[in-house]
């Protein structure tokens, strides 16, 4: 570790803490910076200029903007790729490295490719690598390996991020002179104002730019404005990046580990502008940067950006840069002014007085590459016309070139909101042409470049916002705007040898753009897509203007209508973690969940719920399922059915609503009875099933499948709203816990707990429903039978679910009661021939196809899907669901969705299949061709690639065909 040779003495306005040294490492070497430094500024203080390697040619790259706006300074921070070194604050022990190189950052053996640039024209990959056929298979990995920037570490852990919400009258984005003035104006009028600034401090350009010859004005204004803002009750967020404006002023603002989602009644955009590069050969060398980048290094971080500088400018800000360089002890070897006759201003006069060699009408022609790959000089040439120069006539040694030739508005957020910008010849840059409602723009993005003008413009925007909010305030004056003289219309000096970069991210040269246009990709969007200009991490900030100029020139179209490409969110690279936040993946547990876990159940997801699949370790799965099924068939079992949907439908039209939603008839359903409930969609396809229990003339309790409950509930509400029936629907899904107790001893077990309901077969028959108490818990008792045995579904308040479960297990001990899981239930119901919607049906299965015509009431006027079913029944059924058994007991159990085939064609598929202990054979349900449905018909199931097995259609149900067991 050594002292930082480029660190300047302390000066007012710097953002570093001289008393707090911070050690970090870059490329394995340790450096000392100061608290407040960014990685790039701390490295610059040590004279380190190369930070990364470029995308295509692997050219060394360094600081361009010092504002986190470019890909040049993207570095690898541990497992985090593509981190902007010019905004990343250093911290003790931080370890960072360059990106996209082989060997070392200083000597990248992959940089040979830069010498072959002439063979890699724009879109080169479209033109080659595919002959002979299959060649791309070889080339693609080569291209892929070279592409990309940083690396991800697949072992890294997900870091902590979260989200917050805020509501404000006015959100001002950008804490420069215009933004602060706008916030102040709005706050003084009584509005609740949020001011968002991406840097860790307020000020914007006031913090680093030189507006006057003395270099004092900006800092003075900064002190005044920031003090006033803080005093006016504005909520100030610094280090906060507004990444997007979505519909109705919905802003995403990222600060630290948090994404703030902000709804603002009014938004003022004061996001400033981006200084643009000059285009000349080797304009990408480390050591060549925006004038504002050099000023940021000097004023914010106390770093001398070089020893001997050349300033390339076309406006008075460039002279300010020269003055700042002089103040920082940098020798200014020359100041090239692209203009033929630069007008005089205070700063230019001061620069001349301090002996700066001003060279008007001269352009940078070629950067000279030094031994270490950074800039070592500049060849300059006299401008003779639009982008044309004489032969270069002088080479000036330097280690720093500062470009200050003009600006483009940072209008990304405006574009997100639907605003427009277009090229304006008078100011020679993009200007704002359309501002969306409830939005205002101010400051340099609005063409108000001077400090006072920006402040006036900001006040005006703040006043606009509060006026629209209905507040009254004195109307401030209009700012003088219009950027004539700030932006050079053609800072583009193409070189016959190329490497005159238009897009640094993508290594695109002037000839690439011109060739793309020549090939016919002449619409600005096509040009972007074909050349990839503006598609890199800087999203065209430094490219769009040149692209428009080159496109207009090459096509002969008016630059004002050539336009710019669409700008999309986010404004800058946005971490996935910020967007994800803490994530929210709710899991629903039934009231008995912990009992299942204690009993050793394997839990399986079912919609948002977890349900017990079976009660054993996975290695004992098969035995457990058989034992659970046997318990139900021979004794008694209980299963947690709390996850079923449950809906109370109450009101005079309760039966009418069900009649329209489900296929059966519910109007003539007696109180105290349940009916099967089958729901179809408008195409007639089965979408859910359950039972409808009538407890009162005007009260039904309807169940639905676990996975379908939410959809059924939505459907009930939606249709009820459409039909305006006199009925209310309440979801009790989570409010009730449910247990099905089933098996020949179910009545005996239940009788021990239920004294107020006569459980005898006559008094409480199959499909009866009762209200009563079980183990002292108020319960809805439904005598229904999914598994085909005597059984009762008991629905109790969820708070009592665990108590009910415990009481049932206790009461059933003498009958060897056993809990059973979803797997055993699936087997048992299949033996009984009951379908599972979604497993034994699909999106095109109507009831007749599922052999459930019995579930359709033939005489009612309407139910959802009725017309569609009728239309389909005009033609023969394409397939039908049947029960089957394998004819050869040695054949394997078919898997669900193995195909039923005939003569090479698919005629159906297996939907359920298993070995049944009760029946001692392999049984299942399958869709078969319509002429294969008679019991005894044989059909073929295809198992695996080739194997065919035979099955025989069996009349359903397989088990207890007369229903004696469930009705006992």
């Amino acid at each position, binding site marked *: 570790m050594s002292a930082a040779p480029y660190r300047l003495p302390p000066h007012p306005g710097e953002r570093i803490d001289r008393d707090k040294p911070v050690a970090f490492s870059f490329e394995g070497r340790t450096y000392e910076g100061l608290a407040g430094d960014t990685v790039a500024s701390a490295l610059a203080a040590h004279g380190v200029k190369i930070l990364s390697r470029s995308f295509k040619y692997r050219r060394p790259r360094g600081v361009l903007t010092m504002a986190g706006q470019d890909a040049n300074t993207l570095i690898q921070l541990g497992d985090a*790729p593509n981190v902007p070194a010019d905004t990343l604050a250093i911290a003790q022990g931080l370890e960072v490295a360059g990106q996209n190189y082989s060997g070392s950052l200083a000597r990248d053996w992959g940089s040979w490719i830069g010498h*072959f640039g002439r063979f890699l024209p724009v879109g080169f990959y479209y033109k080659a690598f595919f002959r002979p056929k299959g060649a791309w298979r070889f080339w693609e990995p080569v291209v892929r390996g070279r592409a990309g920037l940083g690396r991800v570490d697949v072992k890294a852990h997900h870091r902590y991020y979260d989200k917050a919400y805020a509501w404000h009258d006015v959100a001002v984005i950008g804490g420069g002179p215009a933004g602060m003035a706008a916030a102040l104006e709005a706050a003084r009028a009584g509005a609740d104002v949020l001011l968002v600034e991406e840097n860790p401090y307020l000020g914007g350009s006031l913090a680093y730019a030189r507006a006057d010859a003395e270099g004092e004005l900006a800092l003075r204004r900064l002190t005044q404005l920031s003090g006033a803002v803080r005093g006016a009750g504005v909520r100030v967020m610094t280090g906060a990046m507004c990444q997007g404006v979505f519909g109705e002023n919905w802003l995403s603002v990222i600060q630290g580990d948090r994404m703030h989602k902000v709804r603002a009644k009014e938004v003022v955009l004061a996001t400033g502008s981006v200084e643009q590069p000059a285009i000349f050969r080797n304009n990408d060398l480390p050591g060549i940067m925006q004038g504002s980048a050099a000023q940021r290094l000097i004023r914010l971080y106390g770093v001398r950006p070089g020893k001997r500088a050349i300033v390339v400018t076309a406006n008075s800000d460039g002279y300010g840069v020269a003055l700042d360089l002089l103040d920082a002890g940098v020798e200014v070897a020359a100041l090239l002014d692209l203009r033929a006759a630069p007008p005089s201003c205070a700063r230019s006069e001061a620069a001349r007085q301090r002996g700066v060699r001003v060279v008007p009408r001269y352009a940078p022609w070629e950067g000279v590459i030094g031994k270490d790959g950074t800039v070592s000089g500049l060849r300059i040439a006299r401008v003779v016309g639009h982008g044309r120069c004489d032969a270069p006539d002088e080479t000036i040694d330097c280690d720093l070139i500062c470009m200050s030739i003009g600006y483009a508005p940072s209008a990304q957020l405006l574009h997100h909101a639907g605003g427009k910008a277009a090229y304006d010849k008078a100011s020679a840059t993009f200007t704002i042409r359309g501002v969306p409602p409830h939005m205002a723009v101010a400051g340099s993005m609005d063409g108000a470049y001077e400090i006072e003008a920006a402040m006036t413009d900001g006040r005006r925007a703040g006043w606009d916002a509060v006026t629209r909010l209905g507040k009254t305030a004195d109307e401030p004056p209009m700012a003088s705007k219009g950027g004539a003289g700030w932006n050079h219309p053609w800072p583009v000096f193409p070189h016959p040898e190329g490497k005159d970069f238009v897009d640094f991210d993508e290594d695109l040269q002037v000839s690439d753009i011109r060739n793309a246009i020549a090939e016919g990709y002449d619409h600005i969007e096509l040009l972007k897509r074909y050349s990839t200009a503006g598609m890199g991490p800087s999203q065209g900030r430094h490219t769009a203007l040149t692209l428009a100029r080159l496109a207009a020139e090459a096509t002969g179209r008016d630059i004002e209508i050539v336009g710019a490409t669409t700008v999309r*969110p986010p404004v800058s690279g946005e971490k996935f973690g910020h967007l994800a936040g803490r994530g929210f993946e709710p899991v629903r547990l039934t009231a008995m969940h912990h009992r299942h876990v204690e009993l050793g159940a394997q839990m399986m997801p079912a919609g948002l719920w977890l349900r017990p699949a079976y009660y054993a370790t996975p290695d004992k799965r098969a035995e457990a399922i058989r034992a659970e099924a046997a318990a139900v068939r021979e004794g008694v079992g209980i299963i947690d059915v709390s996850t079923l949907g449950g809906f109370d439908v109450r009101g005079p039209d309760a039966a009418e609503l069900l009649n329209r939603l489900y296929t059966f008839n519910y109007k003539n359903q007696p109180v105290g009875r349940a009916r099967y409930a089958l729901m179809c969609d408008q195409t007639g396809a089965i979408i859910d099933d359950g039972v409808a229990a009538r407890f009162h003339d005007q009260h039904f309790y309807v169940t639905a499948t676990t996975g379908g409950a939410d959809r059924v509930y939505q459907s009930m509400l939606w249709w009820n709203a459409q039909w305006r029936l006199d009925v209310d629907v309440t979801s009790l899904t989570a409010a009730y816990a449910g247990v099905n107790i089933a098996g020949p001893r179910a009545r005996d077990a239940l009788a021990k707990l239920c004294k107020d309901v006569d459980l005898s077969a006559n008094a409480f028959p199959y499909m009866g429903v009762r209200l009563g108490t079980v183990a002292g818990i108020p319960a809805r008792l439904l005598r229904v039978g999914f598994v085909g045995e005597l059984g009762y579904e008991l629905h109790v308040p969820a708070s009592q679910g665990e108590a009910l479960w415990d009481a049932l297990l206790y009461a059933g001990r003498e009958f060897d009661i056993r809990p059973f899981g979803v797997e055993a239930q699936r087997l048992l119901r299949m033996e009984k021939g009951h379908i599972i919607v979604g497993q034994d049906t699909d999106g095109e299965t109507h009831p007749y196809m599922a052999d459930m015509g019995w579930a359709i009431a033939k005489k009612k006027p309407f139910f959802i899907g009725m017309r569609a079913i009728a239309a389909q029944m005009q033609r023969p059924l394409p397939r039908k669901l049947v029960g089957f058994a394998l004819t050869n007991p040695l054949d394997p159990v078919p898997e669900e969705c193995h195909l039923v085939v005939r003569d090479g064609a698919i005629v159906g598929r297996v939907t359920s299949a298993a070995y049944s202990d009760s029946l001692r054979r392999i049984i299942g349900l399958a869709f078969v061709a319509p002429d294969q449905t008679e019991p005894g018909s044989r059909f073929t199931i295809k198992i695996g690639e080739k194997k065919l097995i035979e099955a025989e259609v069996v009349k359903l149900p397989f088990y207890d065909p007369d229903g004696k067991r469930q009705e006992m």
Partner: protein
Amino acid sequence: MPFGLLKYGLLPSRRVPRRIPPTPELKPSYDVVIIGGGGHGLAAAYYLATVHGITNVAVLEKGYLAGGNTARNTAIIRSNYLTPEGVRFYDESVRLYQGLSNELGFNILYSERGHLTLAHTDAAVRTMRWRAEVNKHCGVNSELIFPDDIRKLAPSLNLSQDVRYPILAALHHPPGSIARHDAVAWGYAIGAARRGVEIHQQTEVTGLKREGNRIVAVETNRGTVACGKVLQAVAGSSTRLADMAGLRLPIKTVPLQACVSQPLKPFLDPIIVSGSLHVYISQSSRGELVMGGSTDPYPLYSTRSTLEFKETLMAHMLEMFPFLSEVRLLRQWAGMADMTPDFSPVMGETPLDNYYLDAGWGTWGFKATPVCGKRMAETVATGKAPDILHAFRLSRFEEFAQAGERGAASVGH
């Protein structure tokens, strides 16, 4: 170094010939007017010219070439569908794609990566097996595989069972590929233009002139042209254009959003889809992660972006790839998806005598570009849709003969 680049680099002037011609003046009439200059319309024009020798064709594009959904999709190509008709159709597309760079003389960067559709529930496992069985039966390479094999193909995927939705299995479809979507359209455009097809950019259809049962002229912002036959290929605007022809389509249009990360060194080869988590992701040859999720929940003719889309997408993405939390999103955008009730397209004849439909492409249009272009060209040239398109006819909806592909849609809708 490939010969093509060598040749180019050694050209003395290094000046390239124009490949996409400028928009010409509209002629008074064309044998065929194709409305929509996206991948589908351009492919149809290409095959009309190359296979059927019909070159008096105008392709009308309201914006810039292939700037609609062709420019906005996530460029996934696969044929692991659910219905035999769907599998057969998309399989033909995959085969055409495999030879397309050489057919067009334009590298579409076709990259066979393998495609994994993850199953997080036993219901999803069932659907995956169904698709695998149907695919294999139709000669398409798909297999249901389980975590040990998934790990070999996508070692970075989080296969822990201690997550909210553990991965139980996956449908592995080795032919699954990605390509450069724009290049497909440009290649077709160049090939069609070379054979005399006119491509009219910035030419918006404003009306269709109907006489009897025929469309006799197409009105545009640049004038009216008479037409022998008309092919509509305007994904995202299908209902609005069909309305001009007096046709009502069973389509609702919903936005479909997508996004891309900053470029990264390669770490992910296969294309990975999770229907349950509403996520799909692939890594392009540029190194960007290309990602999408489910369609937006309501119909809208707009390509605006939303914050909610990427929040949900990323929450789920990080379940699957927890290490991506520090990776940065570069750009998000939206396209418009023409959703049909059965998640299959609508292609072929219409009740009008000379008006042909290429619509209903929901979220599955890009992968069908070559086959749809080729078969729609055949339909237009012969006046009759070939058998392979029969299942996708418009009249299937009134016949309730749907081509149900909901189960094969990559993500929720």
